[in-house]
């Protein structure tokens, strides 16, 4: 098992898979010991069995990713992990939906996205019903006003107060995981970039790192630096888009106008660097696109100008009483609740949980160029808003320090794998590679398994939105229904990342 902290490469021939009951037992032990379950998935084998994989984040120093493998017969039952560890609930639901293995005692066994044969039954979603004379239901979506993704929200309300919200997703299901097995692993990046269009860089980086690890051609530190620059540019752009949405949703005109303008500066800079405003085509496996001195200078200038205006509008937003009145105390997720239901990424950090792969699984890049671990304690919309502002500031400082450091060569003259080869190298056979990249929303996990011939056998994608949607449902409880849009925007989760 080779480990690059945020990436793990296993030779599957070395360890025999565990029987399902043992597999689940070991998962439960690890959860008891304080490890975090990051992914739980399986694939059907030729003989009708199921090969299961669990990925854990082990907190011991140095922290690392670890993998457990199990084997089961089709339709087998096992005692649900969710009963004792609610954080596993969405992972177990997905596991059940994709493999048919049944978690006995799961309290909320409903499809995550209506995959495969279930897709025609989306109208039969088993909504939780709140009964009573005073209760009224409000259904919103799947088609919404404005240009946003489809998803259905069912509110059970007492007057203006939301008692329970249930979120039904799956309308964006495109069968991504199956599509990714359909072509050469070296030409998958455009597809990977469009799994969740506003996290193209995070997805592409994780994908490139995994392919390069499987092909035994790891890039140099310089490649990581350039990818790190791309990732922080994406983080800034998406956080600003969310801040813009938050300002617009509470009719705070100046915030809306200014954030919109600032975001354009960032995404246009991205376009000048790679030809696409959302960073598509920037990253490719086995290659890195360098920054010429002039480009670097221009980017640095753009970021410095941006930082000044950004600080100004943040100050205005944070000082406004009417903004504070809307966000403070709205949509609160306590630290205990966030930990229990296993929130990840920015949303978890806003509830006071210090999890950030860039600090905890730093790898080569963030070891040398660390980013601070930022958290907020409030867990409300205000905390999520201010954390976004602070994360953008941290990314800006990081980028400016990096780009301004004359000792760092980013032109890829010394990159080890800069020359494109004509025949792409074969992937290691019988291997599993799991990569994790801390994207804007949280950890983007991709797991690639190869066959005996070095073909891709399974491609599992895990977006941070999947566990976090449940957090949104929890956050709006006992809040006013009119505050739902700002709660939703402060989480800013991805529909297509969840639906795959």
């Amino acid at each position: 098992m080779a480990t690059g902290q945020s990436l793990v490469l296993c030779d599957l021939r070395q360890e025999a898979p565990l029987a399902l009951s043992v597999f689940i037992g070991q998962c439960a032990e690890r959860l008891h010991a304080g490890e975090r379950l990051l992914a739980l998935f399986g694939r059907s084998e030729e003989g009708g069995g199921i090969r299961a994989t669990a990925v854990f984040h082990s907190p011991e120093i140095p922290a690392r990713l670890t993998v457990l493998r199990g084997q089961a017969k089709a339709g087998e039952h096992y005692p649900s992990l969710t009963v004792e560890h609610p954080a596993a609930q969405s992972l177990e639901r997905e596991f059940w939906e994709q493999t048919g293995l049944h978690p006995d005692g799961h309290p909320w066994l409903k499809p995550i996205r209506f995959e495969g044969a279930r897709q025609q039954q989306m109208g039969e979603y088993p909504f939780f019903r709140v009964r009573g004379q005073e209760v009224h239901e409000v259904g919103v979506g799947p088609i919404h006003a404005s240009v946003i993704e489809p998803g259905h929200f069912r509110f059970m309300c007492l007057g203006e107060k939301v008692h329970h919200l249930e979120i039904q997703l799956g309308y964006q299901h495109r069968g991504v995981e199956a599509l990714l097995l359909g072509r050469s692993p070296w030409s998958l990046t455009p597809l990977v970039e469009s799994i969740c269009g506003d996290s193209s860089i995070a997805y592409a980086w994780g994908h490139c790192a995994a392919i390069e690890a499987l092909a035994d051609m790891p890039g140099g530190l310089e490649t990581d630096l350039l990818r790190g620059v791309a990732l922080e540019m994406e983080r800034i752009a998406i956080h600003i888009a969310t801040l813009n949405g938050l300002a617009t949703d509470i009719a705070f005109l100046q915030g809306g106008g200014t954030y919109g303008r600032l975001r354009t500066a960032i995404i246009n800079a991205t376009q000048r660097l790679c030809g696409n405003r959302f960073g598509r085509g920037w990253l490719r496996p086995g290659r890195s696109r360098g920054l010429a001195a002039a480009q670097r200078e221009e980017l640095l200038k753009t970021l410095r100008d941006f930082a000044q205006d950004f600080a100004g509008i943040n100050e205005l937003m944070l000082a406004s009483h009417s903004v504070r009145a809307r966000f403070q105390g709205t949509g609160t997720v306590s630290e205990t609740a966030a930990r229990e239901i296993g929130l990840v990424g920015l949303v978890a950090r806003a509830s006071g949980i210090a999890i950030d792969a860039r600090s905890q699984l730093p790898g080569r890049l963030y070891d040398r160029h660390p980013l601070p671990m930022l958290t907020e304690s409030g867990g409300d919309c205000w905390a999520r808003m201010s954390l976004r502002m602070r994360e953008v500031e941290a990314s800006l400082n990081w980028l400016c320090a990096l780009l301004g450091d004359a000792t760092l060569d980013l032109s890829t003259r010394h990159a080890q794998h800069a020359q494109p080869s004509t025949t792409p190298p074969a992937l290691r056979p019988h291997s599993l590679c799991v990569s994790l990249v801390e994207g804007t929303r949280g950890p983007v996990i991709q797991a690639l398994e190869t066959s005996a011939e070095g073909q891709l056998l399974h491609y599992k994608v895990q977006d941070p939105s999947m566990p976090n949607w449940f957090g949104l449902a929890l956050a709006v409880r006992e809040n006013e229904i009119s505050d739902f849009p700002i709660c939703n925007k402060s989480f800013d989760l991805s529909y297509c990342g969840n639906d795959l």
Partner: protein
Amino acid sequence: MRLSLSLLHWLLVLGMPILLVGTINRTKSWWVGRRGPGLLQSAWDLWRLLGKQPVVSTTASPLFRAGAYVVLVGSLLAMSMIPLLGRFAPFQFAYDFVVVAYTLGLARILLMLSAMDVGSSFEGMGAAREAAFSTYAEPALFLLLGTASAATGLSSFADVIGALHGTVHFSLIVVPLVAALLILLQTDAARVPVDDPLTHLELTMIHEVMVLDHSGPELAAMQYAAALKMTLYAGLIAALVNPFDPLVSPLAAVLVSFGVMLTVAVVVGCIESLTARLPMRRVPAYVLLASAAALLSMAIVGFGVGAR
């Protein structure tokens, strides 16, 4: 004289809704550094809607389509008794303000009924909010009229508002009364911080959500009626502070009223640019501020403060 004033009054009633919306939008654009739409943009929008074939929900009854026109006609009828130019309105009789209040009330009921008629959960929610918030707004209007009536000793809408500037209390009560009218404007015409006319978020809307299912000419009627309400309150502020008697110096009175109404639109635009919308639970308190302001001026008049 009365006839030409009436013509001018109706010209303002019909034209100001367009101009006020245009002015507010231009003010907001100015604050964020944009050029903004033309002043007459809302007229073009209404014209476009008039040319459209309405789409009516299959669950809607005839009341749904009729409702929009009752709202429009009710608002226009109320406008005939509202002073815009000072101490003048085309229809004027003793205690006509009761008729005005309940004509507007009738329009509001029809607005809510036609919203609920399609059976959408959003529109029911909007109607409930409208009913609640207008309940908080109603005392303010009557307290305000009571104050003006007590101060002037007169009984018709145009007289009590238009003659107020001649009373001894005027300098003390003008500020609270204008504040009350401004809050009523924001409440009834669905402006920030009470409502947000630009939002697309159904769950947060009050007025907009009630017209979600309207389209074509009916939507135009609803939108024009909402702008008329804004004209109504802006006009009341204009009549209140207008020092000229339109029957004596008509030109000055018309110009001052016109200017004051545009100023009100600029003020509304500035408020919308500088503050965020209130949380829904704080809206009643904000609307009750109007009643408090009116009550304060009533106390001033009642206890004879400022009178010798």
